[in-house]
């Protein structure tokens, strides 16, 4: 008998798509996130103009020529908002890569090994989570500039969130019967990790990754709003900063870039919510106040 047959991942479950259909927020989140990613990837096709090109039409309201209007120098906002999506998602992608590269191994190791390693990594992650990274980011951008240094900083401050969730999951999995069975059957650490722990940790980790992404979008926009962004690259936060003195003259300068931030964050939160719902679905069915519930073991 193969040990993996007992793993919950291989338990009889309806196929992913059928379960996902009962989780509308997951589908909506996936769709929306994919759409935003597509805009970011195709930004120069959708809005081929130079984002900082001046035109003789300052403060033009949204029209056919300028879908989102123009700013005080006649620059086309549609171009800037579309190209800004790439700026934002590039930071997200970089941060997620760093957070997973650090957080996943740390969480797995801490959960599997326990003991001193566990204590040490958890203390370190606590310190990282205590320091307010918004202000840390202000410092780092001041010293090293925006762009890559900011991405690295946000990545290095994002991993503890993932590591803690992965550690908790690993800890509970370690004691479960199917892992012990595999161990008894002679499976080594690597095999147990790859076949039994990782697949079961992955879905919880995905929820965290989506949440990390949504926080990074907000943080990046906030920093750029304070003027801490690369001035040569269009970014949503910088557009909102630019809109501030002209709020009474040109509402579109604030409304469209801000909506872009909000929709992106919403999409990622929706995705996380849907993924988390999918995990809950595996555990329990819907219940009302009077229905019996399996108390958590």
């Amino acid at each position: 008998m193969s040990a993996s047959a007992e793993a919950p991942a291989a338990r009889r479950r309806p196929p992913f798509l059928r379960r996902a259909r009962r989780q509308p927020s997951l589908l909506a989140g996936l769709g929306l996130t994919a759409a935003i990613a597509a805009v970011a990837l195709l930004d120069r096709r959708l809005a081929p103009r130079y984002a900082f090109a001046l035109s003789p039409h300052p403060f033009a309201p949204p029209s056919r020529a300028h879908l989102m209007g123009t700013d005080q120098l006649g620059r086309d906002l549609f171009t800037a908002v579309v190209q800004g999506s790439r700026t934002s998602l590039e930071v997200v992608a970089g941060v997620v890569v760093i957070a997973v590269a650090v957080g996943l191994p740390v969480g797995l190791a801490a959960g599997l090994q326990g003991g001193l390693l566990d204590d040490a990594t958890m203390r370190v992650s606590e310190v990282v989570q205590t320091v307010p990274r918004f202000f840390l980011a202000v410092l780092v951008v001041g010293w090293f500039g925006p762009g890559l240094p900011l991405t690295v900083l946000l990545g290095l401050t994002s991993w503890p969130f993932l590591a803690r969730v992965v550690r908790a999951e690993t800890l509970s999995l370690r004691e479960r019967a199917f892992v012990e069975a595999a161990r008894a059957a002679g499976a080594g650490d690597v095999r147990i990790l790859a076949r039994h722990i990782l697949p079961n940790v992955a879905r919880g980790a995905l929820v965290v990754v989506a949440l990390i992404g949504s926080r990074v979008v907000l943080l990046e926009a906030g920093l750029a709003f304070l003027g801490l962004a690369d001035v040569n690259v269009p970014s949503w936060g910088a557009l909102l900063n630019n809109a501030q003195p002209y709020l009474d003259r040109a509402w579109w300068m604030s409304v469209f870039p801000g909506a872009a931030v909000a929709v992106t964050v919403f999409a990622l939160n929706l995705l996380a919510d849907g993924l988390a719902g999918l995990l809950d679905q595996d555990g329990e069915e819907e219940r009302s106040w009077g229905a019996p519930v399996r108390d958590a073991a």
Partner: protein
Amino acid sequence: MNRRYVLRRLLLVVPTVLGVVTLTFVLVHAAPGDPAREFAGEGADETQIDAARAYLHLDRPLPEQYAAYLGHLARGDLGTSFSQRLPVRTLIAMRLWPTLLLTGTALALSVAAGLWLGIRSARRPHGGLDAGVNLASLACYAVPAFWLAQLGVLTLALRTGLLPAGGMNDPRAVHTGMAAALDTGRHLLLPALVLAISETALLLRVTRAGLAGERGREYVRAALAKGASEDEVVRRHAVPNTLLPVVTVIGSRVGFLVSGAVLVESVFNWPGLGRLVVDAGRAGDQPVILGMVLLVSAAVVVANLATDLLYAWIDPRVRQR
């Protein structure tokens, strides 16, 4: 409360605080540029820079500098601002009160609204209200507070003139006593509301999820079987059990609240720490930002400690671990 638990929890603060202090020390020393040159200001000659270096103890060996840094922090000395030539502690103290007023009001609003809405929406799981509230709270949680602030200024202040667009007091009116407080309240309303929205959404979600977990548990069924109404069971039994995670989340939001406040303040020209941080960021005034990092870290540590102790006080099971 169990004295040993309190003591152990207090001891756990030590490595965290040391870690934060060490992290900032390493960062400052890894940073490019010469703090002595910055401190001496533009146009300073070599002797002046050397004097600044000696004044800042930058000519001492690193371990000695680290010890001095610890000593300064222990006395609450956060260093001197490069651009304003004033102690960072003084600068922060001057701006602290408006920010505390703003974040405190926002927190109070969001706790009240978040708990109430969370309990309301958990009554009928998967009902229309619940689904609507879920979606709405996700949306509110996604909106950046500083953008909401701009929209608020746009609609409620500039278009309709209902509320002031910025500042903390009306500069044209000379108010005293009650009238001054009311005037500040009018200026406070919009920034506090804007800041409270996403916190409310979060607390609502935590409350709702917590209550969903209590649903159908044995004690709930027992109370229902004894004839208690659903309202009563929720209010008297389920809600107190849900408060623990809610308290934890409130404690964990200190850092977010302050950084959110900094952004919202800069939209409303609120005379708090936001202005200080923005100016320091632009001027490259690192001691001020570093002071903020340390101050907010300390606030986070205190908040976490307070929630843990509160947790233990509410729930005896925690103390016994």
